[in-house]
């Protein structure tokens, strides 16, 4: 897994609420057996018309907005557990998703793929969206160690929560498998001690 410590980038605004994982990556693209290449179909049906031509009204097709931070509306990533959504976001080059609320499974999937979900207040989200829309060049700094997101120009900032274990994993590029395997003797002891089930 990629390490994540600090990132400074412009951001892409997507102020739509309840963006579900079917929008992030539609089911018909889940037939691959590897983790690669999902980025080209990220937000497929919003990004492209049915004939395959680009929908120029969609923000990812607007050259004004660039960067590796996506700023999205409330309840981002709801719906299906497909990790393909996190893979698509990661593969497209997004390292941070900012929203006022994240769905549970998506949040876990993102963290397991080196994508940082940054949850801020609805007020901070609104101000961030307005700033980006006014000035698409606005640089945003996301500092995982300090758990802080800052608009560089204005200095406007907010702190965000992250589980301390997951923070360590992300900062060092660790994943859960090695940790779990290192506990195998305890897992076996647990199995041996069980009476029921």
């Amino acid at each position: 897994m990629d390490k994540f410590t600090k990132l400074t980038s412009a951001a892409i605004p997507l102020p739509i609420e309840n963006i579900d994982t079917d929008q992030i990556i539609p089911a018909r693209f889940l037939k691959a057996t590897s983790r690669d290449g999902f980025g080209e179909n990220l937000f497929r049906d919003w990004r492209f018309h049915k004939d395959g031509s680009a929908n120029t009204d969609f923000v990812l097709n607007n050259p004004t907005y660039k960067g590796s931070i996506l700023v999205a509306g409330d309840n981002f990533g709801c719906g299906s557990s497909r990790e393909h959504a996190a893979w698509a976001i990661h593969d497209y080059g997004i390292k941070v998703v900012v929203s006022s609320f994240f769905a549970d499974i998506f949040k876990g999937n993102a963290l397991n793929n080196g994508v940082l979900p940054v949850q801020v207040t609805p007020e901070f989200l609104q101000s961030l969206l307005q700033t980006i829309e006014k000035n698409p060049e606005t640089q945003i700094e996301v500092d995982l160690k300090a758990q802080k997101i800052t608009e560089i120009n204005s200095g406007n900032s907010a702190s965000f929560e992250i589980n301390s274990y997951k923070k360590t994993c992300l900062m060092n590029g660790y994943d859960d498998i090695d940790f779990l395997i290192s506990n195998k003797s305890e897992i076996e002891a647990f199995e041996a001690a069980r009476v029921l089930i």
Partner: protein
Amino acid sequence: MKKTLFDKVWDAHVVKEIENGPQILYIDKHLIHEVTSPQAFSELEQREIPVFRPNQIVATADHNTPTVDQHLPVKDELSRNQLAQLSKNCEKNNITLYGLGHKYNGIVHVMAPELGITQPGMTMVCGDSHTSTHGAFGTIAFGIGTSQVAQVFASQCLLLQKPKSLRVNVNGTLKAGVLPKDVILYVISKLGTNAGTGYFCEYAGNVFEEMSMEGRMTVCNMSIEMGARGGMIAPDQTTFDYIQGKEFAPKGEEFDKKVAYWKTLPTDQGAVFDKEYHFDAADIEPMVTYGTNPGMGIKISETIPVQDSASFEKSLNYMNFEKGQSLLDQKVNYVFIGSCTNSRIEDFRVAASYIKGKQKADNVTAWFVPGSQQVAQQIVDEGLNEIFEDAGFKLRQPGCSACLAMNDDKIPEGEYCVSTSNRNFEGRQGQGARTILASPLVAAATAIEGKIIDITKQLN
């Protein structure tokens, strides 16, 4: 300390607590399917990690399988590859697979309960968010991502923070024509799509106590649609009777011992939940959704609410509905009865009871997709298939089908589909398709009338 059903099951599965961190939770059963497992298998292979407990894993093929001509090779190359990959991975790792054509094949959340794999007090996971279905048995069951699938392969455990607790109480008498699907669509319409995020939900009250296991599964299935990772219902005599005699259920003395344990699981009197809601059963009517998330539901007799927000308008625009509009008399050309929410025998009994002696509307294309081979067989055995055929319907073969349209069962662009599935997201049933979620009774009535009708008027 008074414990909830959830606490009792969770606490019995904690292997270890990490200081200031998550807990290592032991997983009893791991269900897998073709779409979310291949990358987990290849990750283990790359890292040369063996599958730790293959006999606690059960696999089925369901998400992208065709629902016609299952005896022929799967036409779509990518689907065929993915299915072949699943067979190969299961064979290599000694995992039981109920593949296409097997008598136990079916949608993962239909197949496991009907085989007695799902039992109270267990922890169960699957790379599918509707794993919450199994909570109907008093099981902690939840959906996981593929990285977590790999973790369970490697260690039969997951690293998790214990979620908060939520209880939804529904008491009173349900009106005629109100089905378990209506109850859960009503609850989600009141609480919204993220009220349950970070929580595990218990459903309590006489409405759930009086429900069949099929009904309880429908309710728990949609817990994720209000954001809750899982939903649970306390095991009781209905649960025990359902499990007894099932293929993989404990037998004889072993069964009695298990039942004695299962009886200790219900939430203690006086246990406190982090959040609690109460609803009156009499307020619930048959429900339909009008928007692009499952929380956007109304009683069938109501009109679409008037709300001003860009997201709300985007949603109505996609559905081609107006604020304040009624859905009654809305012409509908597609009907889907199926999915892990409503494809069990009881759902087809409800549909057949309405359809009997009537004829399918000419404008309607209807897909009736049983959840498993066993359900399909039962439909035939109970004579329901004759009722469907006499009315102009044809039963298809089991699978997830038009719920997520990974196979050929896609609703065309711009068309409305009254669907018994669980998600009305944009494009969920096909690019540009417009989904209206409803119960099997409302779906059956729509298939006969060719439009949405107020079913309660016929029943009263």
